[in-house]
């Protein structure tokens, strides 16, 4: 399902910074995205949502700059041009609860300047079908479940075929079947487009993304392919019958043995690393969650 990287950079960010009071949410973030799905990983408070909000033009940065799809959002004309080709799913999407799913997505389509009524209504039907909400399209949003609302928000992000899609934890609150459906959708969306996907689910990144960025404390700690991130843990994951006190992290697996990551002792039984192992080792020292 992993999407392929194609072509030159579609987004280039240089030294982005943003502070909230005394908190430095972004601290000199530079990155480069190409077409395809890029995963953004990081612990809570890493600055993922802030970075996505900046790249989606929801908040301007204090410092630094970026261009996306050739548009510079530092100017009014550039921001408008970028927004015309942008789809954004925020971390906590909001709705007018009295609107039906169809009415809300139609409203967003109007805000995306799709003024030809016939084409717009066809497009709204298409995206609601894509997120499997056709049957409840006439239901008021306040009567929909959390997972359904999340899909309404995804439909709103997808409407108008955006060239740059920013998705902030889109699989939160979804059951495994819905998550698989989401992965298919996002993989399709990544074909020929630039998709930036923030998630806590390393398996989402492993299955979907051609590139991955690891963010911690407002800084980029890794940028590369999922295979590169996984390779960081090569030779640093081992199995033992007891939790190794020298391991950075260790947990009992379903088989009863312990899976440890860190610097293995001599003669340890090495295991095949996963992307999560590489991620945890990349964050070593950056987050208390690593050793929790």
């Amino acid at each position, binding site marked *: 399902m992993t999407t392929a990287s194609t072509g030159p950079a579609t987004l280039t960010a240089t030294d982005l910074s943003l502070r*909230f009071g005394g908190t430095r949410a972004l601290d000199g973030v530079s990155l480069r995205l190409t077409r395809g799905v890029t995963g953004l990983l990081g612990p809570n408070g890493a600055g993922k949502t802030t970075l996505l909000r900046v790249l989606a033009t929801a908040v301007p940065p204090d410092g630094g700059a970026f261009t996306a799809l050739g548009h510079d959002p530092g100017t009014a004309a550039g921001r408008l041009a970028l927004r015309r080709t942008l789809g*954004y799913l925020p971390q906590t999407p909001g709705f007018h609860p009295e609107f039906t799913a169809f009415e809300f997505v139609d409203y967003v389509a109007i805000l*995306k300047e799709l003024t030809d009524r016939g084409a717009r209504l066809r497009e709204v039907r298409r995206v609601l079908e894509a997120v499997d909400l056709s049957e409840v399209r006439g239901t008021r949003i306040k009567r929909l479940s959390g997972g359904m609302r999340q899909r309404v928000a995804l439909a709103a992000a997808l409407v108008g075929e955006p060239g740059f899609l920013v998705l902030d934890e889109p699989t939160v609150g979804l059951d495994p079947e819905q998550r698989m459906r989401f992965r298919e959708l996002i993989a399709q969306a990544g074909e020929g487009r630039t998709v930036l996907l923030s998630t806590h689910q390393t398996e989402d990144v492993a299955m979907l993304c051609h590139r991955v960025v690891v963010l911690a404390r407002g800084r980029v700690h890794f940028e590369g392919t999922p295979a590169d991130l996984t390779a960081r843990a090569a030779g640093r994951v081992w199995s033992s019958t007891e939790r190794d006190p020298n391991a950075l992290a260790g947990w009992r697996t379903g088989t009863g043995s312990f899976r440890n990551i860190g610097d293995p002792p001599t003669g340890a039984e090495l295991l095949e690393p996963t992307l999560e192992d590489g991620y945890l080792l990349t964050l070593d020292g950056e987050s208390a969650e690593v050793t929790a």
Partner: protein
Amino acid sequence: MRGVAQTATRGLPADLLRPLVPPVWRGLPRRALTTAGGLGLLLAGTTRLPDHAPDAELGRLVLRLTALTGALGLAFLLDDPARNTTATTPVGRPRRTVLRLAFVAPLAALWWAAVLLLTPAPTRPALGPATLEAAGTACAALALATIAVRFTQAAEVGRSTAVWLGTAAAVAVLVPNRWGLLGTSQDPYWAATQVRWAVVLGATVTLSVLWTPEPLRGRPHGHGPGRLGPSWSRPSE
């Protein structure tokens, strides 16, 4: 379907207005507006209850309370539960705000006219100063809501704005008449009070006009969301 964005006409503002009107109208915080409007009319109607019409100073007090009630309703005008989801669309928040104002301004003017008509003639104070005070109070509510939207990420700023407006009104009551906004027509400071109301009106309109557009650059470091008080939200990360 890749080309929908291309095949659907990229609209000019005039093309957008027609489809945009129904959803923006439906998205208005009608409960807050109608509640405040209804309470204001009831309040103004109390001047007709006594056997003898109250004097103009009591009428002025009732009209001030009525104007404050209406302004508390207007404090909710910029509430937009879908703010996060629609924040980055080409038709941005400022244009939608202007549309909301275009809906509400004539209704507010009609409401104020009804309030004045409900107040019996002997009780009704001079219309000019009373209307100036009502407009200043309404614009103060809108300016406070504009500040809340501009400097926080909150989707629904009405409650916080109403608290700030109520606080401002309480402070105004405590300020001596020679410096304040709530004098009476018998005060020697009455003319100066009207000038102050004109300043309030001008300042709040200017502030709302300046701070409604979305900024292109972040603010200088050290002035982040949350500085306005604990009830104003900030981003989760």
